[in-house]
Each structure stands twice: as C-alpha cells, then as structure tokens.
C-alpha cells in the first residue's frame, strides 16, 4: 500500500520554514494522493528543496503539521526512512565507488535482505541499462547516467514514496524522456512520486502539481484544471517588428507577461472583468497607439501562462499589501 487509509500519501498543513529572517516556505497546505506523480513547480529559490527536506524529516519545520504515509513528521521520521526513497538535488552517491558498489552499498544500508541483494542489484543494472558499466566509477559518468544511477539507488528497497528533487536539471532532453518513462513505470507499479522541477514541459506531464513562488503555494491541481481556471487571457500577436511591439506591451498595466515565440508574441493579460474579446481589443488599441500594425488571435492557455499569471498575481498582491 502506498498511502494512508484514504489513499492520501502526504498531508501538510500550514508548513513554514524560516532561516533567520528569510521565510523559505510560507504556510503551505498540500495534499498528495497516492500512486500519483505529483509535481512541484517553481523557480530557483522558491522553497522546493526546503519543503522536500521537511517532508523527509531532514529539516525541522518552524511551524505546521506534516503527515507522510500516516506518520507524524519529524517525530516519527525514523519509521519513515525505510519506506521512502530520496533523490537529492545534487548527486549524492559516491563518486569513487563503481556503479555496482554504489548499488550494493545502498542495498545494505536500506536493509535489502542479504540473500536477495545480488539479484536485486543485477535486476536494477539490467533495467537501468548499466550492464556494460558496472565497474565504472560513478564520478566518471555523464549527468544523465548519474541521475539514472541515483534513481536506481533510490528505489533499491522498493519504497512506497519517492522524493525526487529536480532530478533532470543536468540531463539532456533524450535522457530526460527516458527518465520520465521510468517515473511513470514506478507510478504504475504503485509508487507515489513527488518530483520538483522548474521546467514547464516536465510539470505538464505530472498527474497533479503545485506551483510554488517565494515559498508560497500559489496554485495546485491537475495541469488541465490549472489551465482551465487561468485567471487571464492568452493571445498570439503577429507584428512586423515583434521586439518593438514587445516593448510597447511589457509595461502596460493589464499585461501580465509577454514572451517572443519565433516571429510572434505570446501575450497574457489580466482577466480584470473583461472577456477575451475586450482584452484583445485592448491589445490592438495599445499597439495601434505605438504605431504597430498587428494581428491578435486568442490562444489556448498552457501551463506556462498559468505559471506567469499566478506568480505575477502573488507579487502584485504583495506590493499592494
């Protein structure tokens, strides 16, 4: 079983962590259902690692309650250790041990029975494509290979819950796809995964996700729920001179975000009581005044738009407060 009685793996209420005057995690409420891939999306410094460390019982929260797999954390952290796998953001296996030695070490530490260790290690070497590099020192491998090894080590004892902290930040796109295949295989086999990332395309793959910004949880839900609830409108703007058009838009009060995509601009505006037509007209007028001849189409919002919208909103509220 991979979760509490109600199928919830992690339940967090009012979780806060302060480092001196810095509030790294700010009253986060979170519910992670079992057997899901749950994403933590947020820019660097938004508190993803700090939250994960508190959930594993490695950092003591300043405030708040944590319940992981039915255990109170940090009080019952020791009981949790054998039931979780944790892949740290920085590669934390031993550079001066070989692939096989690292796996054997983690098997012993995680309490895989001695009689089953050799078979389990062989199995993982096979599954994670290390057959021809068993004797290679971990420190000499590429970023993608290291992450694969770290994942193999994290799952060696068949944990119910896996914490993966930015597992693919140093990995090329091809290896990234393979890596995510593995994550879904694990989820299918009944493991709950909590994966942090700052990449939109990865967040989009998660069953559910939470968006963190400066320690605050600004939105959560499935990717489609989040885009459906988007507080704003998305447009594609075709302009003769996209860069000048961008300059004209970027400081306008109703515009949340402008990003150049090829020769077009992707523009996100406030909902602000107007419908999509009204917002489109607002953009046309704005660009017309700047002497730009443009075409403006409404577009399907994506997760990046959601991200820009919720993080801008939280910052504006902060400014007004």
């Amino acid at each position, binding site marked *: 079983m991979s979760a509490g009685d109600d199928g919830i793996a992690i339940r967090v209420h009012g979780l806060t962590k302060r480092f001196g005057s810095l509030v790294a995690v700010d009253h986060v409420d979170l519910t992670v259902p079992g057997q899901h891939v749950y994403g933590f999306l947020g820019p660097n410094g938004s508190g993803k690692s700090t939250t994960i*460390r508190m959930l*594993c019982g*490695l*950092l*003591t929260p300043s405030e708040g309650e944590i319940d992981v797999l039915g255990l109170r954390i*940090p009080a019952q*952290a*020791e009981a949790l*250790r*054998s039931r*979780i796998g*944790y892949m*740290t953001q*920085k*590669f*934390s*296996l*031993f*550079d*001066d*041990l070989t692939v096989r*030695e690292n796996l*054997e*070490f*983690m098997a*012993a*530490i*995680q*309490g895989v029975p*001695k009689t089953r260790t050799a078979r389990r290690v062989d199995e993982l070497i096979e599954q994670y494509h290390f057959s021809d590099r068993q004797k290679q*020192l971990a420190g000499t491998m590429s970023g993608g290979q290291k992450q694969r090894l770290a994942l193999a080590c994290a799952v060696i004892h068949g944990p119910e819950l896996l914490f993966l902290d930015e597992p693919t930040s140093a990995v090329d796109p091809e290896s990234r796809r393979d890596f995510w295949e593995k994550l879904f295989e694990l989820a299918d086999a009944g493991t709950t995964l909590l994966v942090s990332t700052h990449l939109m395309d990865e967040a989009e793959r998660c069953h559910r996700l939470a968006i963190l910004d400066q320690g605050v949880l600004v939105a959560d839900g499935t990717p489609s729920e989040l885009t459906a609830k988007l507080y704003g409108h998305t447009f594609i703007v075709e302009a003769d001179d996209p860069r000048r058009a961008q300059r004209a838009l970027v400081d306008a009060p109703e515009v949340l975000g402008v990003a150049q995509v090829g020769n077009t601009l992707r523009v996100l505006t406030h909902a602000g009581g107007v419908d999509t037509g009204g917002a489109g007209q607002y953009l046309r007028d704005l660009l017309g005044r700047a002497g730009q001849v443009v075409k403006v189409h409404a577009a399907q919002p994506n997760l990046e738009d959601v991200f820009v919208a919720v993080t801008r909103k939280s910052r504006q509220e902060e400014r007004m407060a």
Partner: protein
Amino acid sequence: MSWRRLWAIVIKELRQMRRDRITLAMIVGIPVMQLVLFGYAINTNLRGLEAGISDQSNTAGSRALVMDMLATGVIAPVARADTPEELMTMLRRGRISVGIVVPPDFERRRLDGRAVAQILVDGSDNTVQGAAVQLAQVPVDNWVPDARAPMRSTPNEGRISIVGFYNPQRRSAVNIVPGLVGVILTMTMVLFTGIAIVRERERGNMELLIATPLISAELMIGKVLPYIAIGLVQTSVILALGRWLFVVPINGSLLDVYVAAVLLIMANLTLGLLISTRAQSQFQAMQMAFFIFLPSILLSGFMFPFAGMPKVAQWLAEILPLTHFLRLIRGVMLRGASLWELWVDVLALLAFIVVMMTAAILRFRKRLD
C-alpha cells in the same frame, strides 16, 4: 544496531581509501619520513662539532686531556678563549656548540679526584648532548707526570662534568622512537577521521545517508574500524624501522605494545570524529586537528620532561591521550613493564575513548539544521 549496515560502511570506507592515492601514500609515507627525520636528527654519533677551548691551567696534563678529546674526532676546535664566560657568549651566538673549560687548578683537582674539566653544551640541539657524553668518556689520568701519583682504574666517574644549556634533559633514539609511535598516530589518526564526516557533508553524501535507516552509531563505528587497521600498519612500520635503523629494543611484550597502540589509535579516532561532527569544512577540521596536535607534542612529555612542567600544563597534559600512551609505551618498550602494572593509564585511555565516542554519536544529528 545492524551489523550489515555497519559492515557496509566499513567496506565502503576501505574501497574509497584504496582509490585515494594521497591517503594511501600518507599511511606509510608519514611514519617512514618522520622516523627517518627524527631518528637521524637525534643520531648521537656526530663528528666534527665546532668547539671552543678555554684551557686556564695550560699544563702538560691539561693539554694532553684536550688533545685526547680532539683525537676522538667528535669535536673540531674553532676558537680559543681565556675565560668560560667568553665560551658561553660564543655558545649563545651559535659560533660553537661545545665549550671545553679546564680550570686553573686542574692538577690539584686531578690529584684530589675531583672534576677536572667542564664541557659546556648547547642543549637546544639534542645531538650535541649525545656528543658531550662521548667526550666525557676520555680518560683523565692517561698522562701521569709523577710516577708517585695514584693510577685510577675507573677514571671517569664524574671527573668531567657536562653542563647542558637551554635543555637540561638528554634523550636518544631509544627514548624517542617509542614516543614517535604516539606522535605519528596522533597526527594521522585525528586527521583521517577529522575529515571523514565533513568530507561526506561537503560532497553531499551525508544528505543521502541521513535519509536512510542508517543510525549514528553504525556510521561512527563503521568509520572508525578501518582506521584502526591503518593505525596498526603504521605502528608496525615504525617499530620495524626503529628496530632496523636505530636498534630500539622492545623489552616488554609485543602484544602489550600493540594493545597500547590500539588504545591510542581509538582515542585519536574518536576525537577526530568529534571534530568532524563540529567542523563546517575539511579545512576547518584540519585546523582543529592541528590545534589538538600541538599541545599533544608539547605537553605530553615527548618534547619536554613532564615533571618539569608547571602544574596547569600537567593537568592539561593529563587530558591528552598521547601523555598516557607515552607512559605506557616507554614502560613496556624500555622498562619491560606489563600493561597490568600501568593500569592507571590504560584506564585513562579507555575512559577517553568512551567519552569521545559517546559525544560524537550524540552530537551527530540525522538532521540538516
């Protein structure tokens, strides 16, 4: 406590050590280098020491005595002086390392059987002390002007007195090699485990380890065990070289020597672990290790005689493992004592080990904050 996890840590440490060339080189290199350096620096068979001579008597007998001393080859005359004070000035300035003073009443003293000459030595240099001992062996009564004067069969008991300056204690290789076992073990062992935990923290391994069921005692003991073996290798190297190069005897039982060594090794390893749980970086750990090393060398009785130290220094020295080890090892190796007879120091080392290990295990938190 799981033996499996403990053993996994031991194996991991050994594998990492095997791939770490610098550490490997240090394990054997440091003892060999130190022993050879210390050993030869204290070699007592020196020749050609610069000497100043003040023969205030200037009789045929006194001249013959000086000639006999020169004939040993240990000293080479570089200066003559009228008074002992002049010699002392030269000694202080480092112009000479040995001064020979023959007083004006040399003949009278010789007949009376009193001390006939003085050798002033620069005690800041151990080697010179040894040389002076050799000089003092020159027979005083070889040259007898008067057939009626009594011949002495044991001429030298106290007839030439040695006055050491700056360091009144005399020591030799035999005395130093056993101590060197302790000094080398203190230096390397504290350092090895001192960086053991910090290194894993710096490399990020620790965050992985503390998120597993591994407990502090397994980690701490697992880190100490491999180094006990290393320490014993070092001990053997020093003892073997000491025997081969300097003919240092082991008068007591070899087993007692090794038991004493294991006690010191463990004391230093546990101390290193405690340092490691405190230090923020490997560099800081090394600084702390050095901070322990210096008083160990100075106060333990290795450099300066324990009895001559102020009370406060003696109390401090009693805390240091090296102090107790020196008493044990000198007792066993030189006086042929057994560890049973030296139980006080054995107990002191055991207590030190227990206290340090407990402190290290308690101090180590499976937390990042």
